[in-house]
């Protein structure tokens, strides 16, 4: 189900009414039924996939939890008789069992994900909604239990509620059990502020998505769909507009997700912190799709880079090639794997895989250049200089425009062909002299996009010290009402929806 559909709005309204109308102890039940309905509306086969994930991770986590308890009880009971070595051996033996169970569950779920992600005959048309997101959520939880960072959830119902929580099924974020569970499992009284704040956040998401993203998607589809006609300078326009479009679409969707959750009294982690103000790619990845990058850091990068093998490898390198390489190489190897997997997670075609690797290469180069940068700042321009910071933001944004082009074509070859074509500056004349108006957007549409982007930019600047809603809440009532109403009306009138616009799927829906 798309966020921008009457069905979704109706669904949320009905759910909200029921959620707050029933006695509070039934709220979780209502929510769970809502999750199931939401999922079934997108195809009942989805339930099977999610069911397997829920049961396998729940079961494995429970088993591991019980094993840990049993181990502790055993050690405690036999404190006196066991020698230190015996204790260690016993613990190692038990840990091995837990490792096996955890590994089986991980393999099962990764295989399930791979099954639907890789092009194949049987599951060609089965792409269970949100499987990329809830699989990572479940696996993160399982690993936390395995690492004894998290107590296993005893109730299957409650665990299923976590995995199936509907707002995050459309396009994430990838929630952590410890972040989401507390407010998800609590009983919620109807809180005016939650409803109001959540509503405004949802509205803001719809504004980004309908007014900007969906309007731009037509142009991007036109350019990327016909390289023979739209090449050369068109590619620059495409990258630039797509970079705006993706942010508006993705962060707008997350706004809707978090806003809906807030109306239900559930707190979710933020997924974006003004990413296009980043001064480097590294910083960008701390501010863009945060729940994904931290997931890969915690559950892939750390585990790989501190394995015994990797540590030994590091020692070996140090002995033979010196400290510098010994320190760096393991990190680089682990990063490589992480970016490779991140690429595949986004899509199994070559454009996504190469995209991951290009990210990796840029990050490693800037890592290596850090001393050079430090020297440069010491001698020439201080890193804190305003002009320099602005330059770095613009530089990073330009880099992102290029990187994001990988989303627009089907293979890495096509992307590189597009780069090559762009720098011939062919068709620049045609583009400037009216070509840009032949792509599915009129001058009026461009004006709307431009003003809308300025609004988003302004809001980003205003919200730096404190959320705009908090700032607004201290203003006179008439102003508050005016702003919210204006947001609503602008979205309603200038939104690119309805007949004449393709109901474009959320871009992240595919991943």
């Amino acid at each position, binding site marked *: 189900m798309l966020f921008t559909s009457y069905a979704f709005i109706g669904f949320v309204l009905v759910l909200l009414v029921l959620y707050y109308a029933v006695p509070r102890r039934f709220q979780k039940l209502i929510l769970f039924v809502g999750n199931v309905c939401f999922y079934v509306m997108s195809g009942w086969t989805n339930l099977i996939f999610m069911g397997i994930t829920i049961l396998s991770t729940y079961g494995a986590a429970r088993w591991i939890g019980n094993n840990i308890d049993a181990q502790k009880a055993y050690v405690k009971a036999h404190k006196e008789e066991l020698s230190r070595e015996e204790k260690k051996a016993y613990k190692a033996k038990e840990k091995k069992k837990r490792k096996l169970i955890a590994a089986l569950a991980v393999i099962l779920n990764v295989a399930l994900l791979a099954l639907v992600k890789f092009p194949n005959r049987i599951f060609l048309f089965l792409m269970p909604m949100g499987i990329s997101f809830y699989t990572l959520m479940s696996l993160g939880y399982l690993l936390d239990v395995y690492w004894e960072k998290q107590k296993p959830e005893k109730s299957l119902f409650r665990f299923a509620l976590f995995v199936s929580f509907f707002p995050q099924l459309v396009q994430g974020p990838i929630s952590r059990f410890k972040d989401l569970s507390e407010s998800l499992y609590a009983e919620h009284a109807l809180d005016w502020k939650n409803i109001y704040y959540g509503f405004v956040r949802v509205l803001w998401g719809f504004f980004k998505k309908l007014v900007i993203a969906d309007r731009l998607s037509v142009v991007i589809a036109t350019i990327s769909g016909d390289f023979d006609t739209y090449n050369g300078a068109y590619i620059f326009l495409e990258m630039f507009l797509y970079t705006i479009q993706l942010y508006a679409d993705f962060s707008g969707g997350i706004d809707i997700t978090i806003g809906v959750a807030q109306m239900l009294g559930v707190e979710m982690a933020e997924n974006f912190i003004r990413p296009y103000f980043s001064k480097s790619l590294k910083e960008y990845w701390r501010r863009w799709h945060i729940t994904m990058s931290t997931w890969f850091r915690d559950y892939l990068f750390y585990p790989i880079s501190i394995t015994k093998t990797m540590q030994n490898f590091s020692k070996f390198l140090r002995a033979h090639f010196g400290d510098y390489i010994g320190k760096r190489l393991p990190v680089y190897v682990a990063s490589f794997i992480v970016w490779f997997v991140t690429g595949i997670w986004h899509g199994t075609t070559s454009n996504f895989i190469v995209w991951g690797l290009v990210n990796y290469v840029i990050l490693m180069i800037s890592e290596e250049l850090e001393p050079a940068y430090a020297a440069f700042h010491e001698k020439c321009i201080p890193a804190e200089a305003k002009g320099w910071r602005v330059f770095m933001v613009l530089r990073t944004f330009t880099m992102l425009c290029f990187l994001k082009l990988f989303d627009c074509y089907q293979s890495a070859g096509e992307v590189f062909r597009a780069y090559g074509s762009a720098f011939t500056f062919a068709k620049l004349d045609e583009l400037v002299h009216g070509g840009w108006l032949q792509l599915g957007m009129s001058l009026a549409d461009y004006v709307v996009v431009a003003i809308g982007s300025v609004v988003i930019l302004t809001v980003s600047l205003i919200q730096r010290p404190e959320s705009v809603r908090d700032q607004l809440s201290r203003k006179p009532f008439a102003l508050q009402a005016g702003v919210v109403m204006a947001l609503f009306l602008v979205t309603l009138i200038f939104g690119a929806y*309805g007949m004449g616009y393709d109901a474009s799927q959320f871009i992240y829906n595919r991943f």
Partner: protein
Amino acid sequence: MKKSVILRRVVAVGLLLIFILYMLQRLLVPKYITGIVEGAFVAEYYREPDKNFDVIFVGDCEVYENFSPAELWKEYGIHSYIRGSAQQYIWQSYYLLEDTLRFHKPEVVVFNIQSLQYDESQSEAYNRMTLEGMQWSPAKVGSIRASMTEGEHFLDYVFPILRYHDRWKELTADDVKYMFKTEPVTYNGYYMRTDVLAAGDIPEGRPLENYDFGDKAWEYMDKIRALCEENDIQLVMVKAPSLYPYWYPEYEEQVEAYAAKYDLPYYNFLELQEETGVDYSTDTYDGGLHMNLSGAKKLSHYIGPILLENGAADRRDDAALSRIWDEKLVRYEEAASKKE
């Protein structure tokens, strides 16, 4: 903050918002006064001062451009109205008839059967032009449900602003001028054209894979017939003399068989050229697709006696009705002479 204060504010904001939305909606919906006027036809009916029509025509452009109620009144004293709109599908005709019966019961219903060839609505734009003008009633709900094409939503009909929000790009002075008022564009549902474009060679229709009318089309044909029977209305079926879209002999056979089966009068004006005197070099304004005023006069002249035969009456002795018509005729004649 007190609950009552919050409640009052929410209500105040809500009311203000509804008011603004209403104004915006009035501004943004198409007015159909200039340019494409076909969208205004259906709504005009409700403004009629005397809805006790003896004859109701239902159908698409093949009725609203071919029969002139004004001529029927002048010549025969028949009080009639055309409930037709562009590309009006048979289910829409059925529901318009249902809608009409909420106001009065005619003696005769003339239905143009050309829409039998469509089994599904073909375009959202035509749906809009027929459905929007209808007043809300179960008939409208039924008609919308039967008409919606893929991607259309019922809600868009309830709140047209959802459909037309994007018209901010093409607003004109007329959108402001006609926000709350409108002007009649038809003459009792008749759309007057006085220009002439003679018919040239109309090619034979391309062979079709299947000439059978669809199930949905037949279903609504039956419903129209049943509705007329229930209400004691004589149903008359006609096929207008439009040369295009091509009327296949296979179509004709099916309609004739149906008319015979239920003992319904059926007139195919394509075959009655001699009797009506329609001249395709002077009586059509678009090369034979539709009649102009001259053609409509001839068809009205011909169909008048048929209507009288089937239950319509000469009501020129009704003083009140005559006054209404006198007024109507002033506007009608003025337009007829101005356009010529």
